[in-house]
């Protein structure tokens, strides 16, 4: 049963019906017992009365056999002739009987109550033996009449119930509908919403039972709205940031089309090629950023080997005509970091690219390990011009490109590094090295660090040198 109202209706109807039926059963049993008790008492009383009348000679035992002479009152009702009376001599002859009493002996028992089957009908009989007069008085009740009495009472109870039950059903149905109306209102409210409407549902007049659902729904709305807001901001941001390089590409293409001078054309085409590279990198970084921002939870942390990742990234790095060399210190081989490898790779790649872009031709990029208090630091150091001190606090801003900018930079790299490290539970440290160049540090708290044994033969010459 999918519908709450149908289920409630059926449950209520069945339970109400069951309560009613058990009440009827209980009334049936207790009424029967009560009637039994009352009628038995009457039977006893009637027997004693007849006996006392015989004793006081008011009933002449000799003439009592005539039906007309019966002293019993005839009630004009369905329960007429409920009582039957027989007077037997102790020798076994019928001395007298009441009108309508059977001819057969009502009971063979001596004193007290008994039940006898006569002509297919059960009789409840009370017997009194009068030894002095030598008679036995038997007063009997037809059980059929007793049963009818009980069943009449029960019928009196059940008949109105049959009439009331449909009315009760209707009332239950109406109550359920009214009770569930707030749910219907919320459903209607939700159904009528346009997809863009993520405003919270009004829970001021909501029932207490619905409030948790509303709260959860509103929480979900808030999260979805936040995510969508971030995506919208990002889209606007991305579109905006792509316009300048695209304008550059278009202008250079128009220059190439407009000029007859091969030198100018070649220069423009070269600019287009490097412009496409730059724009491609910008797009990749924008996508990195967007996927970082969309990640609500980090993937389960797995051990990252910083040395291996740095070496692999160093191999991929386009070092072009600069002839750069990259060294990865052997100490890096001795630790594993518990974090998502993708986050480390993203951060390290952007830091390495930055270092390569700002390096002077023939320079060296040095990756090494430092320890400070409760943290280890993976450092990536270049030999470039460094970051002007007054720009150090701004370089992590998105799209900020300082005075010592690289031609291929987008201003996104450090923002991505910071975001990725933040997601991984680490942080980024940037400073100008004493002997020139930038030293970027991936600061990992000790809880994320595990020491491992360095390989037996680490690297020739103590450090690995990349192709360059």
């Amino acid at each position: 049963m999918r519908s709450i109202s149908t289920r409630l209706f059926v449950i209520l109807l069945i339970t109400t019906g069951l309560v009613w039926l058990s009440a009827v059963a209980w009334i049936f049993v207790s009424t029967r017992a009560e009637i039994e008790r009352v009628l038995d008492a009457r039977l006893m009383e009637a027997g004693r009365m007849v006996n006392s009348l015989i004793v006081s000679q008011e009933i002449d035992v000799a003439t009592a056999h005539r039906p007309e002479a019966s002293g019993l009152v005839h009630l004009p009702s369905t329960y007429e002739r409920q009582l039957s009376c027989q007077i037997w001599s102790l020798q076994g002859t019928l001395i007298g009987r009441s009108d309508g009493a059977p001819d057969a002996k009502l009971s063979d028992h001596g004193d007290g109550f008994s039940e006898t089957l006569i002509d297919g009908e059960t009789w409840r009989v009370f017997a009194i033996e009068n030894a002095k007069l030598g008679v036995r008085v038997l007063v009997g009740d037809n059980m059929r009449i007793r049963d009818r009495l009980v069943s009449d009472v029960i019928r009196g109870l059940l008949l109105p119930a049959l009439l009331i039950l449909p009315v009760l059903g209707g009332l239950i149905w109406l109550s359920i509908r009214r009770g569930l109306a707030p749910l219907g209102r919320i459903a209607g409210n939700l159904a009528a919403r346009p997809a863009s409407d993520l405003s919270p549902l009004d829970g001021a007049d909501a029932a207490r039972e619905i409030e948790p659902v509303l709260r959860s729904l509103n929480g979900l709305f808030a999260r979805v709205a936040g995510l969508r807001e971030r995506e919208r901001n990002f889209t606007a941001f991305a579109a905006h940031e792509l316009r300048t390089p695209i304008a550059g590409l278009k202008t250079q293409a128009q220059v190439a089309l407009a000029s007859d001078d091969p030198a100018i054309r070649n220069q423009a085409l070269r600019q287009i090629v490097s412009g496409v590279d730059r724009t491609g990198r910008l797009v990749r970084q924008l996508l990195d950023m967007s996927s970082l921002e969309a990640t609500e939870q980090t993937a389960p942390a797995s051990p990252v080997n910083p040395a291996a990742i740095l070496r692999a990234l160093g191999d991929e790095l386009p070092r072009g005509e600069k002839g750069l060399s990259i060294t990865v210190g052997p100490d890096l081989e001795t630790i594993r970091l518990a974090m998502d490898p993708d986050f480390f790779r993203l951060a390290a790649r952007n830091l390495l690219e930055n270092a390569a872009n700002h390096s002077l031709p023939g320079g060296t990029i040095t990756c090494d390990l430092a320890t400070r208090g409760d943290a280890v630091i993976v450092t990536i150091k270049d030999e470039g011009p460094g970051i002007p001190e007054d720009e150090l606090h701004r370089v992590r801003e998105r799209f900020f490109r300082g005075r010592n900018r690289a031609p291929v930079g987008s201003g996104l790299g450090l923002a991505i590094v910071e975001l990725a490290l933040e997601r991984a539970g680490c942080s980024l440290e940037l400073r100008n090295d004493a002997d020139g160049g930038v030293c970027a540090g991936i600061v990992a708290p000790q809880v994320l660090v595990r020491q491992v044994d360095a390989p037996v033969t680490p690297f020739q010459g103590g450090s690995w040198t990349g192709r360059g």
Partner: protein
Amino acid sequence: MRILIIEDDAALRDGLRVGLSLAGFTTDAIETCDEANAVLIGHSFDAIVLDLMLPDGSGLDILKALRERGDKIPVLLLTARDSVADRINGLDRGADDYLGKPFDLDEVAARLRALIRRAEGRSQSVLQWQNVTVELSSRNVEKDGVPIRLSRREFSILRALMSHPGAVLSKTQLEDKLYGWQEEVESNAVEVHIHHLRQKLGAEMIQTIRGAGYRLGGES
């Protein structure tokens, strides 16, 4: 017509510099606010192409400084932000025109010509002196209805003189109109171009004012 381009994106800056010089402008390009503020004191540019977002500040600051000095040089703003609010803000801060990126190089050139024309107080894009007609957008020159072929430098000198009829332009002023910073200027270059112009348009077209410079000859 000498144009200063202030744009931080290298490819775009280079494209504008080369592209606008192909369209007949003399172009110089810089990329920061600092450079702009230094260059724009006592400059000889006819118009500025200005990017809004520069590494060390906003193009609007350059614009503000210019207008505070009373400099009326036409400024064409180039920007990636071109919502209506951005455009209104830029124009209200003293820009003369506004183009959103990406733009068409020819449109930049046409807008610059229009800006310079308005700044020189003309409504036509055609200059006329006696029987010589100069069409600025197509750079066609005619004498008595006959087309005359001029080199880029010759055209620039003729255009500068015809834009200010009656005014005397010094040799240095003419050199400034002709050459960007990166171009080597031969000491007698202006004299050589004037000589060629006189050959093509007639000796009386340009007068030499001894010790002062050159101006158009005769009456309009």
